């Protein structure tokens, strides 16, 4: 009995000691733009990871979200510099322009603040890890899924968002490489637009007006499908495969207009980045590889409901 009491007391003291020592860690999260829902999911992922890891390791982890309203690499660089000055312990960033952010990332690292990149990397910088899809593979996989749906023949258009984003440029490259393997598949063109759902839908409508012979679309980002009624054609008449699988996009799987969505693990961008940063900051542990690839998850009619259930957790409350 005495021994149990001593053990209980020792445990209580240990717990009290730990509570008193609860360390606060601030992790800056700099995504590309506020308005893009994939980055809002990344934010939720980061905040969930902060809560989970905080409880598990007796840490108080704070996520400091500093994302420009519109894509702006200069503003991202300024945000990194401000976070360093404000005492952030680590930073996760999705780079709008790798060249422009390299110096800011290096300065942060030189000041003792480890930096992880997610979604879009700055390969020449001193970031200790990058997490996200392999963009060339992503473009390739999108076009291959489309080719499967179209039976390997038809006229295809690529919807490509911001022409300056290096990750999207790589996806376009991958999509073109994959299309080259199908002699019956002709790429009409790559169409860029401002990365808002409205601009994306407007661009598709313009293109279809002037190119009614297009029979397939490869969306290397999910922008138009973030709105309802974006595709004006009946299911089955024009094939369409898109990257991302946000809640609004899932309706297009259900109505048959989009047979396959390739989900990027955008919730994991935030979640995994925080895990990697906490490992680095608290446990001084480096990841086994600098590049950690997150695979795309195909979403079809078969698994759409199971996938949709995830979003109740991933969306901002």
């Amino acid at each position, binding site marked *: 009995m005495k021994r149990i009491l001593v053990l209980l007391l020792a445990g209580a003291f240990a717990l009290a000691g730990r509570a008193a020592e609860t360390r606060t860690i601030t992790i800056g999260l700099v995504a590309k733009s*506020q308005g893009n829902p994939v980055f809002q999911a990344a934010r939720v992922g980061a905040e969930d990871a902060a809560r989970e890891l905080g409880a598990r390791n007796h840490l108080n982890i*704070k996520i*400091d*979200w*500093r*994302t420009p*309203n*519109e*894509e*702006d*690499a*200069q503003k991202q*660089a*300024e*945000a990194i*510099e*401000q*976070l360093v*000055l*404000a*005492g952030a312990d680590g930073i996760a960033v999705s780079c*709008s*322009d*790798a*060249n*422009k952010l*390299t*110096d*800011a990332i290096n300065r942060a690292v*030189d*000041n*003792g603040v480890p930096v992880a990149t997610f979604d879009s990397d700055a390969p020449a910088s001193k970031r200790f890890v990058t997490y996200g899809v392999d963009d060339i593979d992503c473009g390739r996989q999108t076009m291959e899924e489309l080719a499967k749906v179209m039976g390997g023949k038809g006229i295809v258009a690529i919807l490509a968002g*911001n*022409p*300056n984003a*290096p990750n999207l*440029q790589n996806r376009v490259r991958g999509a073109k490489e994959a299309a080259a393997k199908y002699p019956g598949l002709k790429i009409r063109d790559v169409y*860029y637009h401002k990365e808002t759902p409205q601009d994306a839908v407007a661009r598709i409508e313009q293109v279809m007006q002037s190119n009614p012979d297009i029979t397939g679309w490869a969306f290397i980002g999910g922008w138009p499908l973030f709105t309802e009624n974006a595709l004006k054609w009946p299911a089955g008449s024009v094939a369409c495969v898109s990257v991302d699988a946000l809640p609004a996009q899932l309706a297009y799987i259900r109505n048959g207009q989009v047979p396959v969505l390739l989900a990027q693990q955008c919730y994991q961008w935030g979640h995994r980045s925080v895990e990697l940063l906490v490992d680095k900051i608290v446990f001084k542990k480096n990841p086994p590889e600098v590049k950690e690839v997150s695979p795309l998850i195909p979403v079809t009619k078969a698994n759409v409901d199971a996938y949709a259930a995830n979003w109740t957790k991933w969306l901002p409350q």
Partner: protein
Amino acid sequence: MPSRRLSLFRLQEGGLLVVIFVLGALLTTFGGRVRTPLLTVGADGTRERVFETNAAGERVPVFVEENKFLNVRNLAQLAKDTSFTAIMAVGMSIVIISGGIDLSVGAAYALASVLGAMVFNHYGPGGPAAGSAVTGVVLGMVTCVGTAALCGLANGALIVALRVHPFIVTLGAMAILRGIAFVVTRGQSVGGFPTAFRGMIGWTTASGLSLVPLGVMIVVTVVGWIFLSRLAAGRRVYAIGGNELASRFSGIGVERVKIGVYVISGLSAGVAALLALGYYGSASSGDGQGYELNVIAAAVVGGASLTGGRGTALGAVLGALVIQMISSGIVILGIDQNYSQIIIGSVVIAAVVLDNLNGWLARRRLVRAGH
């Protein structure tokens, strides 16, 4: 009359200075403290962290604790972040004083950046003319600033020749210039500049402070102040903005002055673009997106009247500083970023309302003095 106008400006800038002081005091008081690693300059001139051995015999970095807002590094950062917008705001103020508006500054900034970047890249470490760094630096600088000035010249010439409202001409120019920037770069980011250029703009003090953007901002402000308040050309800008018809009848070359103000606006965008190129080390056609609104907001907060005839160079810089202080303050205070746009937008509107109130009070004083 000029002395009364001068006193009004003084009053307005005095108000801005009070706002800046109050904001600074609030951020100093409520911003809290931050632990930063202690750095020293090594034998080879590079900055490195200072380490000590703790009780357990481990080598651990040394930290210093300082106020989050009121520390030299943060103030230098604030000045650097302000400088790009502030420099363009001086040019924009001059345009606004003349009764015009320039919506193309962000696009001129992007085009000047990418063309300058292409020249710098050509003479950069990996470029075909890597050996001629000095030539490259000079050519790149001339290209960057010259391109933006030419954009301004084209704007001014079109406004005068076509007699179309500046809003329309510069709105069109905004799309055209950004389109050219995209076509010439094919959407690629351009980096790899001569180290001499990067070293010149990115020069830091021994303690790591980057002061070149601040220095350039001060020079631009002084030049703008001299132009507007000490030169006849500057007074003509006020005259045209105050009453274009009366200025025309009094023999002022309205067209020439109008072209001039757009060239100045272009030049200021070119100088800001050059600084950003040197500091950040790359350019792409997406640069400067939406900057025209930030620059107009800075000029208006700084006291420039959108109806023309009022504004100062110093006011524009202080306006940019107020907006940047709020933006940085949101980070320092740890306020959720979702509220930042609401806060900044409210400040812009409040500044314009105060400006109108100030003008109304001044007019009332004049009427009373007349009686």
